[in-house]
């Protein structure tokens, strides 16, 4: 202990200029904060952050300087020839670093205390202490900064270069942490901030331990910097490469786990016009996954075989509804592929063609744009800019008849799919205005009120019907004439939504509220209704025309049933 304290005293004496400068800069910065920030709480806030940043910077500097300068000057070699162990020299350096950081932190706090006593208010000092207290939960990060600095100073013989290197190492570790968080996310593991802090603290301790090993190794090869550097570089390299590769591999494995993986969640689908092929967009099981990569599979209902066509990738969406766009041709579909680096950046659009010999996937020059199903073939629409009073204008034209009507209102009232709905029946337009749903006929200028107290409107996939949520009940109306397709469903009992499909079928899913609520499929055209054992955790429920429906049942299997709800096959057994 005496030996270590003797060495620590020498360190302190050697670094006295730096220590003095750090103390002065700290006091000056805090003084400047008080001079330039006008309000008590702003001062307290800024001072707390300044203290934190200053301490982090001093940690980086003194850690980076810990061995670099001594090794460059040969002083470390001189000390090493004293009858002390390598471990004692190491402990002296780390002890000095710890004392320095602690001392400068205490100094910063004392400076702010004095400044608050003179210039602040009791509340502002309390606020300063509160903010600083919340920031100190990041203490393990200081440990990581210190460890990165110390390791860097073992490799290079310049404090400045060591600081730069430590910053790079810190970036690499942050990148590693990011990869790890994504990997964990995909594995379904959610870590709290406490877990991350513990991991950071453990990482800092481990890096310090590796540093001690590298230093001791170097002391047995005195004068050979490469001996230390090899251990440090190998350690950091092994850590980052192994951890990074392992996590990335796990991430990839999870992401392309396949449809059978129990954690795969079915998000959306679109079927070929003949209903034989269904393209499935899936996301790898992420409990709170907002940024997990998605992939696209195409499944053959006759052979039950599936093939991945894009990872990361998504089905191309209808520009207005956000639902998957239909297939372009009889058996061709465009799919968006994203870059591996960024799961949201478009890489290319591929064309997937289902042939008798299997799927043929080819790159295309096209983009993800396409027509919206909200604009039927008879209509053209033009959206005008904002007027001086903030109003919008939507013009609907019927070119075949040379007719046009203009709708003016706020943004939502004039937006297709929100306030304006074009019927599949030519010339008919529905408009939601002030909670009132009206049906317009472009030919005779007639307008009928279909419903009042309307809160939400949703058109059917084919545009021939509309679900109207009013106060108390939900109506299903034909967009051609506003006639009712079904008795109103009471809102307090049921949630009603359209079942996606590419054909002209008009079916809804009726879901009872509550955990044990049951789900029913109702075909508004045939009147067929049956109960469906559907897993509500999956968004997928798709109608395949006369072939029936596919959905994920409560056992997690992807199931195919006929139009009457009779099970045809389990497409994916999970």
């Amino acid at each position, binding site marked *: 202990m005496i030996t270590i304290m003797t060495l620590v005293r020498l360190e302190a004496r050697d670094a006295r200029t730096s220590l003095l400068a750090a103390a002065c800069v700290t006091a000056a910065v805090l003084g400047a904060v008080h001079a330039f920030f006008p309000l008590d709480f702003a001062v307290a806030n800024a001072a707390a952050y300044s203290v934190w940043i200053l301490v982090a910077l001093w940690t980086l500097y003194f850690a980076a300087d810990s061995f670099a300068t001594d090794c460059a000057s040969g002083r470390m070699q*001189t000390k090493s020839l004293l*009858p*002390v162990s390598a471990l004692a020299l190491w402990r002296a350096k780390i002890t000095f670093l710890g004392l320095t950081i602690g001392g400068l932190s205490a100094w910063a706090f004392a400076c702010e205390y004095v400044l608050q006593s003179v210039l602040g208010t009791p509340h502002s000092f309390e606020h300063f202490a509160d903010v600083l207290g919340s920031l100190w939960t990041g203490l393990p990060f200081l440990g990581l900064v210190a460890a990165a600095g110390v390791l860097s100073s073992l490799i290079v013989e310049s404090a400045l270069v060591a600081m730069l290197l430590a910053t790079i190492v810190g970036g690499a570790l942050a990148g590693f942490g990011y990869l790890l968080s994504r990997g964990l996310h995909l594995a379904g593991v959610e870590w709290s901030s406490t877990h991350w802090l513990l991991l950071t603290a453990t990482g800092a301790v481990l890096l310090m331990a590796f540093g001690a090993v590298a230093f001791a190794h170097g002391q047995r090869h*005195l004068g050979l910097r490469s001996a230390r550097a090899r251990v440090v570089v190998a350690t950091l390299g092994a850590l980052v490469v192994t951890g990074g590769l392992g996590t990335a591999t796990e991430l990839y494995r999870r992401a392309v786990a396949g449809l059978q993986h129990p954690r795969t969640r079915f998000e959306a689908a679109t079927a070929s016009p003949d209903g034989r092929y269904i393209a499935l967009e899936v996301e790898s099981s992420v409990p709170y996954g907002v940024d997990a990569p998605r992939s696209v599979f195409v499944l053959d209902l006759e052979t039950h075989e599936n093939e991945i066509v894009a990872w990361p990738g998504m089905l191309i969406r209808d520009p207005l509804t956000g639902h998957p766009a239909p297939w372009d041709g009889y058996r061709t579909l465009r799919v968006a592929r994203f870059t591996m680096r960024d799961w949201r950046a478009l890489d290319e659009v591929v064309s997937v063609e289902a042939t008798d010999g299997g799927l043929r996937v080819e790159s295309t020059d096209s983009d993800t744009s396409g027509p919206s199903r909200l604009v039927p073939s008879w209509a053209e629409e033009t959206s005008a800019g904002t007027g001086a009073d903030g109003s919008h204008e939507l013009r609907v034209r019927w070119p075949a008849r040379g007719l046009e009507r203009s709708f003016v209102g706020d943004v939502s009232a004039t937006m297709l799919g929100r306030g304006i709905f074009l019927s599949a029946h030519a010339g008919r337009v529905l408009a939601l205005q002030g909670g009132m749903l009206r049906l317009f006929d472009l030919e005779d200028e007639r307008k009928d009120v279909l419903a009042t107290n309307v809160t939400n409107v949703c058109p059917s996939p084919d545009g021939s019907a509309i679900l109207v949520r009013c106060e108390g009940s939900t109506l299903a109306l034909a967009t051609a004439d506003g006639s009712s397709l079904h008795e109103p469903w009471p809102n307090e009992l049921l949630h009603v939504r359209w079942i996606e499909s590419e054909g002209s079928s008009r079916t809804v899913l009726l879901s009872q509220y509550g955990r044990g609520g049951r789900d029913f499929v109702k075909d508004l055209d045939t009147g067929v209704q049956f109960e469906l054992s559907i897993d509500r955790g999956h968004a997928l429920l798709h109608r395949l025309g006369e072939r029936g429906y596919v959905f994920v049942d409560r056992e997690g299997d992807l199931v195919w049933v006929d139009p009457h709800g009779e099970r045809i096959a389990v497409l994916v057994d999970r």
Partner: protein
Amino acid sequence: MSNDLDPVVSVKGLRVRFGRRTILDGLDLDVPRGSVMALVGRNGVGKSTLLRVLVGALLPQAGAARVLGLDPTREGPRVRARIGYVPDRIDVPSWMRGRDWLAFVARFYPTWSTTEQRRWLDVLALEDGTKVSAMSKGARTKLALVAALAHSPELLLLDEPFSGLDVGVRHAITTAVLTSLRDESRSVLLVSHSIPDVERLADRVAVLSEGRIERSGELEVVGRTERGGVDLESTLLALPATGGSR
């Protein structure tokens, strides 16, 4: 445990490589207790490397070394506590005065004696109140010698400590130190390029060449010429020109 008959330094089959370059290649050497042995050889043959192994600052790839009966690769601090080592260069913080450095070093040696420190300061005529940054090279060498001797080491290792000093200072230092040590029957292993110094001070010589001890023994035997005289320089000149590269 070592006894008085054991050599203070015993090296067997020592091998040191730096990358692909072999510096020491199966080196064997014994330094008898109480002797002043000079290690000579051309530049780069591994003389300083050998001393670094002996103080535990370098791990050899093969072979064994014992210093005062201890293994320096495992017991480096214990070895360094019992020997005095003057490297070719020491780096002392420039703000220190001579006495500050000695006070700092003293804390690491249980056998440090202020009386011995005073004695060696007197023998070497060194003013310890001078700042190290203001000291001449000769004064720094003297300071390093005092630091190496004040704990009464059983063995003194000197690695070219007198190079760069003018003849007068070198002569005064070497005479004062080595004569005193010889009188106290302490052992010295001296690395030097100065043949006159070696011939004047050493009683034994080991000639290092190509990573091995080419010749070793009493000065008169190793440096004997065909005419019957002693000329160590001629012996060195007859060695291969390159060092230990393989």
